[in-house]
Structure formats: structure tokens, C-alpha cells
């Protein structure tokens, strides 16, 4: 494992009014590492992602990304820094085709005319085909609108988009929650490809089988705190469940 740390948080804290959604989270991600974040509903999994990507502003704590301390004002900043997120609600435009969705907000321009700049549709299509090939995503017809695609295909487009643009880190929030068995398999294959390419990944998932299949390390959240960070080889499903439910994990059980 590469020793370079790509993402690090120190005492990351988020309070929503009186609710302590995230408390003193110290989190580390190494170059090329795939880490899963697990925990019960409301344990702070999505909250930590929102603080890291700048969707929300943290209450306190520090974040380092790629060797620099960062303060992302919004999700766009984190994207420019090379961090991509696959959101639970997909964030695709149903009425646009695959290349348009892949390049949404980052369109390739053929001729600059301000807001009326002419799009280079051919270049986007070629690049889309290459990107889908690289991530091993199979979409029958790129000109189809997203509306005409299955949930799995949509998810694949969303992931392909993130994988194509993320230079340094991909975060996936429950990427297979709404998918069938076969479609889940396809998404998992994409994640394995990313691993082979050395792209670091944070995977939020409820599915322990999937977590053990895909990642190197598992971080367990409970009531806004990180209660365990375990290498996959040093733990098992039962162990993780005990941390999730609070049977294990000193601080919480003592409280």
C-alpha cells in the first residue's frame, strides 16, 4: 500500500442545531486505497461526505486533500480539486443523452461565443465512448435519453461520469441501493476496475457482503463518531455488526 495520504480529516464536527451529526471524526485515506464507510441510519456516514465535498459547511475541524488544507465553499470547488461524488439521487438529467450528461457543466466547446458557444458534439461522443469503455460500462445506444434507461444503466452513467473526471478521489453514496442483482454486479465491476487503476474510493454502503468484496478497509460510524477502522483481513461481518449496533466500541458502550 502506498503511504501517501490523499485525504485526511481532523476532529471534523458537524452540528445541525442541537443534533451532533458528526463528532471529532479523524479519517484517513491513502493513495489507491478503497475504504468503506458503514453504520446505521443517521450514524453520520453521509454527513462526513457532505462536509468533505463542501456541500455543507462544517462546524469545526480540518480537512486536508492531496497534501493541502482545504476549505471547499461548495461542491464545485471539490470537483475542481479532483474529487467526484456519485450522489444517492444520481444527479442526472433524464431528458439528455449520455454524452450530454457525462459532460454536463463541462461541455467541450468548438467555437466560443459566451453562453451561445457552439458545442463539439462529436468530440464529446467519442470521449464518452472511450470513457465508457475504460470503466467497462455497456450502454446500448448513447443517443438515448437517460429516461429510457434502466436503473443500472443510469447508475453506470453516473459512475462513469465521476470516474472519467475524478483525478484523485471518488466518493460513492450507496451506489447499488436501488439496483437489482445483475446491475449491482456491473457496478461492482466498475469499482474493481477503479481499484486496478489505483483511483482511491470512499464507498458508503449498507451491504456488508459488498463491502468485504470490494474494499481494503472498513470504517464504522455510530452516533456521529468513528468507532472502528479495521482492515478487511482483520475482521469479519459479525465483528462489524457488533460495532455498528454498539455492542463493541468502548466509548459508546460506556456512555
Amino acid at each position, binding site marked *: 500500500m502506498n503511504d501517501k495520504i490523499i485525504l485526511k480529516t481532523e476532529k471534523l464536527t458537524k452540528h445541525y442545531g442541537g443534533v451532533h451529526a458528526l463528532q471529532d471524526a479523524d479519517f484517513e485515506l491513502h493513495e489507491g486505497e478503497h475504504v468503506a464507510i458503514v453504520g446505521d441510519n443517521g450514524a453520520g456516514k453521509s454527513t462526513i461526505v457532505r462536509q468533505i465535498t463542501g456541500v455543507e459547511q462544517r462546524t469545526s475541524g480540518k480537512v486536508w486533500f492531496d497534501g493541502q488544507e482545504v476549505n471547499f465553499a461548495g461542491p464545485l470547488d471539490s470537483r475542481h480539486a479532483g474529487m467526484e461524488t456519485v*450522489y444517492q439521487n*444520481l444527479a*442526472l*438529467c433524464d*431528458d439528455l443523452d449520455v454524452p450530454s450528461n457525462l459532460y*454536463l457543466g463541462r*461541455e467541450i466547446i468548438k467555437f466560443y461565443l459566451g*453562453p*451561445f458557444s457552439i458545442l463539439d458534439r462529436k468530440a464529446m461522443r467519442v470521449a464518452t465512448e472511450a470513457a465508457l469503455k475504460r470503466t467497462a460500462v455497456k450502454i446500448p445506444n448513447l443517443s438515448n435519453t437517460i429516461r*429510457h434507461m434502466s436503473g443500472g444503466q443510469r447508475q453506470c452513467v453516473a459512475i462513469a461520469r465521476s470516474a472519467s473526471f475524478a483525478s484523485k478521489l471518488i466518493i460513492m453514496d450507496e451506489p447499488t441501493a436501488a439496483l437489482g442483482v445483475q446491475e449491482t454486479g456491473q457496478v461492482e465491476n466498475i469499482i474493481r476496475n477503479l481499484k486496478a487503476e489505483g483511483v482511491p474510493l470512499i464507498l458508503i454502503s449498507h451491504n456488508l457482503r459488498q463491502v468485504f468484496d470490494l474494499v481494503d478497509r472498513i470504517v464504522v460510524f455510530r452516533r456521529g463518531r468513528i468507532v472502528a477502522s479495521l482492515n478487511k483481513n482483520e475482521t469479519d461481518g459479525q465483528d462489524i455488526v457488533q460495532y455498528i449496533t454498539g455492542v463493541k466500541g468502548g466509548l459508546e458502550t460506556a456512555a
Partner: protein
Amino acid sequence: MAQTSHGVGDLTFDSSKRARPPELNVFFGLILIVLVFEVLGWLLLGDSFLFNTRDSVDTLFNEQRLQIIVLQVAIVGILAVGVTQVIITGGIDLSSGSVVGATAMITMAFAQAGTLNGVDNTRAVFWDQGWVDLPVIVPIVVALLCGVTAGFINGMVIAYTKIPPFIATLGMMVSARGMAKWLTKGQPISFPTESYASIANGEIIATGWNPVIYFVIIATLFHLALKYTLYGKHTYAIGSNSEAARIAGIKVERHLVLVYSIAGLMAGIAALILTSRNLTAQTGMGVMYELDAIAMAVIGGVSLSGGRGSIIGTALGMLIFGVIISGFTFLKIDAYYQEMIKGVIIVSAVVADVWRQKRRAMQG
């Protein structure tokens, strides 16, 4: 998914998902409606709707009727083009008709001639200020500015207060109509300069076709802009999923202001052509135009829920509108019935849109 075929390369093709372009359906609708009038014409009047039946003229089609069909809808068609892009963003513009009225009055005040048959036109609105016989560029700029300003206000209110476009443009609809009456206390403004009159009545290609020529130019520009530019891509993206557009880095608010401003600009242009053609401006100009424009777009397959539609569709919707009005006149149906039936058509178009979406949702 039963008809999906899996090839050896694991590629799939599902023919049911290769949808026919909705514009084609609208086109068939247009042809069907023309045929209905043709048949009714022969049955009820013993005359053709579309073809020439007079010996004195040597043409295949009844060209006069064709000209009437397109001329009477071309000006509203310009509004329809503007409102099409607004509807694609998921919004609506109810103010375009009133903005036409207000712009018409203000513009005409700057377009009046100084002398009528050798006599000073002392009743000109700006006679005291000496603003008569102004170069034609002045009223043109005034018209475009009026339209853009109204649209800009619409856009700012909608984008930054987040109130529904329906309400914001309804407010503008009422205010702009008041504005139309304010300048002259409700009196019409007439007698423009010759150069102003020639905007709509001069000869560009063929005399009498100017409004249609303007429409074709504008519609072509919008078709290209929506299909091949960033502007179009972002317009569809916002109407499709504004939150996704925002996350993707599109400046949604700024884009909406631009879209509504351009819709306002179209109302300004429509007012310009309308007053130039009629040689007069009245406070009631453009009443109900906004609904006709929306109807043209919806008939043309532009979805009121946003994200879908095209200028080609709207142009076809406009022709359907023109054919129906001409057809009713041809069949000598009273204007009252025409309006009643127009209402039915508008509602039917929306119902068709809802059905289309339901079917799509079931397929998806």
C-alpha cells in the same frame, strides 16, 4: 424488456426504446387536420380548402389561403418561439401578450411622423418634446429594450425569489397591461413614419410576407441555439433536473434570467412587427397572445413539465393553430365557436402531454 436481443458482443438493442421523434407525430396531426378541413369543405361547401378551384388563377394551391394561414400566426409564432425555451426550462411566461401591448404603445410613441398630408401632426405623443420623424433605429431600439427589460425583471424575480414562474409572469402580465394604458391614458397611437411602416410592409423578398420572413429567421436561430450551443444544452438540463444542473456547475439562476430576457426580447420584436404592420398601436394589442403562444408550443409537443420540446415542434404547432383558425373561417363557423373550440384544443394538447408522460413513465 422481452424484446431485447443480446448479441454475442453483449451489446443489446431494444427497438421499442428507439422512439419516434415527437415532431413527426405533430406533423401527421397537421396533415390529418388539413385533410379533415379538405373533406368537410367538399362535403359542406363543395369547395377545396387547400387547392385552387378558380380558373382565373393558374396555381395548384390556393395561395391566398396559405398566405393567410401563416401570416395570421407568424407574429404570435415569434412569441411562441420565446415561450418554448421558457417552457423547456420548466417555467411558463404569461406576460408575453401584455408585454407586446406595452411595448407597442411605447415604441409607437417614438415612431410617429411629424407631418400628415402636409399638416403638422400636433397630436403626436412627443410633439412638445419634438420627438417626431426620428430615425427608424430609435423605435427599434426602444422596442427591443422594452421587451428585454420586462423579460429581465421576470427572470430576476423567478430566479432569485424562487416564486413560481406562473405567479411572477402573471404579475408582469397585469402590470404591463397597465403600462400599455399609462402613456396615452388608453388612447391609440397612430401614424408612424414611412421607414417604420416599411419594417413589416416593405419588400424583403416578396411584399406582404415580412412577418413570416422574420419568424423563419428567428425560429431558425433558436433551433440552432437550442440544438447546437451551450445555451440550449443548459436550457434542457435545467428543465430536466435543475438540481443536477446546479451540482454539475451550471449557473442556473443566471441562465434563467437570460432565458426570460430573451423571451421578453421576442415580445419586443413581435410588438415591433405588429405595430409596423397595423400602422397603429392600441392598448389592447396582444391580449390572449400569451395563451396562443403557449398553446402553439404545447400542441407542438413541448412538455409543460420541462426538459422536452423543440422549435420544429412549436413551428408545426403554430401551423396547426393557423390551419384550424383558417379552416373555421373557411367553413364559416362563428368567431365565438372558434374561441370555444380553441380552448378545447389547448386543453387537449395538455392532456396529450400528460398521457405521453404517463406512458413514458410506465415504459421507463
